[in-house]
C-alpha cells in the first residue's frame, strides 16, 4: 500500500482525481456495513500511477523498517490522491478479511466504516 509521507498532509492538499472522486462518492453514498462494502467498490486495482511512486528515505531507520513490515511504501507527491486510493484499497482488503469472520459489534462496524467515509469525504471536499 502506498501512503503519503505524513508531513505532506499538513500542507495544502492536491485535488483528488475525477476517477478516484467517483469511487469515493460510490463508497460514501453506499453506507453499507463493513463486510458488505465490497459490492460498492471497484474491483480494479487502485494502485497509483508508477510516476507517483517515489522512494522516500524517512529520517528514522526504524520508521522505514516498520513500514516495510506492514508492506507500506511512501509517496512524496499528490498526498490527497495517494491517501484516497490507499483508503479505498484498505477498505476493500479489510472488508474481504472481515468476511472470513470477526467479533465486532454492529456499532463498532459502524464506527470503523464511518471513520473511513468521513476521512474520504474530507479529502474530496478539499476543493469543493
Amino acid at each position, binding site marked *: 500500500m502506498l501512503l503519503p509521507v*505524513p*508531513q505532506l498532509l499538513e500542507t495544502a492538499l492536491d485535488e483528488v482525481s475525477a476517477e478516484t472522486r467517483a469511487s469515493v462518492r460510490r463508497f460514501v453514498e453506499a453506507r453499507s456495513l463493513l463486510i458488505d462494502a465490497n459490492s460498492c467498490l471497484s474491483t480494479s486495482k487502485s494502485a497509483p500511477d508508477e510516476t507517483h511512486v517515489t522512494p522516500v528515505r524517512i529520517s*528514522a531507520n526504524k520508521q522505514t523498517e516498520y513500514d516495510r*513490515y506492514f508492506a507500506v511504501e511512501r509517496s*512524496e507527491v499528490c498526498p490527497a490522491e495517494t491517501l484516497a486510493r490507499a*483508503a479505498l484499497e484498505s477498505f476493500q*482488503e*479489510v472488508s474481504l478479511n472481515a468476511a472470513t469472520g470477526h467479533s465486532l459489534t454492529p456499532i463498532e462496524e459502524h464506527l470503523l466504516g464511518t471513520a473511513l467515509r468521513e476521512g474520504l469525504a474530507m479529502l474530496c471536499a478539499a476543493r469543493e
Partner: protein
Amino acid sequence: MRLTRSPPAPAQSQPPHPYRGDALVRWKVVHRAFFVIIDFILIGLTRLEMALVADRPAEVRLALLRLETLLLGSAVALRLAGDFPGTEYGPKVRDDMAAFDPEFSGSFSADHARMIKRIAVLSRVPPYAADEHGRVLSALDAVYRNHAWVCESFVGAKPSLAQGDGTQQSGVDLLVGQFRRRALHRAGCPSSTDITVKSTEAVRGAERHAVLAEEQAHDSASIPTT
C-alpha cells in the same frame, strides 16, 4: 433420603472465535487501515489548526467532531487488528514481529509519531468548544484503552516487545498509564495537567527503553524528510 451431590458442572467452553483466516494477515491488513485513519486524523488536526488561526468557531467545532469520529474509528481498527483467537498471537504475530525486530514497537510508525506530535493543537481549543473538546479527549482515551485491551487479551501482564523481558511493568500498564496520560496531556486534558510528562522516575531499566523509543519517535517526527 440421602441427597447425592450433583456432578460438577462442566466448565463452560468458550465458543470458537469467528475468525477463520490467518492471524498475521488480519494483523497487517487492519493495521494498514489504522495508518490510513491516522493520516486522516493528521489532516483533521491541520483543519482544526486553520480554523483556530482564522478564529472560526463553527469550523473549530466541526473539526473537533470530525476528529472524534476518526479517533473512534481508529480505536475500532485496533480492536479488529487483534480480533483472532488469542492462542495465535504468540506463535503467529508476536514471534513474527520479534523475528523482524526484537524491539518492535508501534512507536516506530511514522504516521503515529507525527500524530502524537501534532495532537498538541488540541490544547489550544478555546472554551467555547469545551464540549466538543471533551468528546475528542474521551475518544483519545478510548483509543489507548482499546489498544491496551488488545495487549491484555494476548499477553496479560507481560511486557511488550519494546520493553523487553527484564521489566516489571506490563505493556498494558505502560499504555493506559504513562502513554495515555501523556497523549491526553498533550491534547489539553485539564485533569492531566498535574502529570509530569517526561518523568521516568517510576520507569526503570527496560521500561525506560520503551518510553525512550516513543520519545525518539516523537523527535524523529519533527525532522523534515524533504
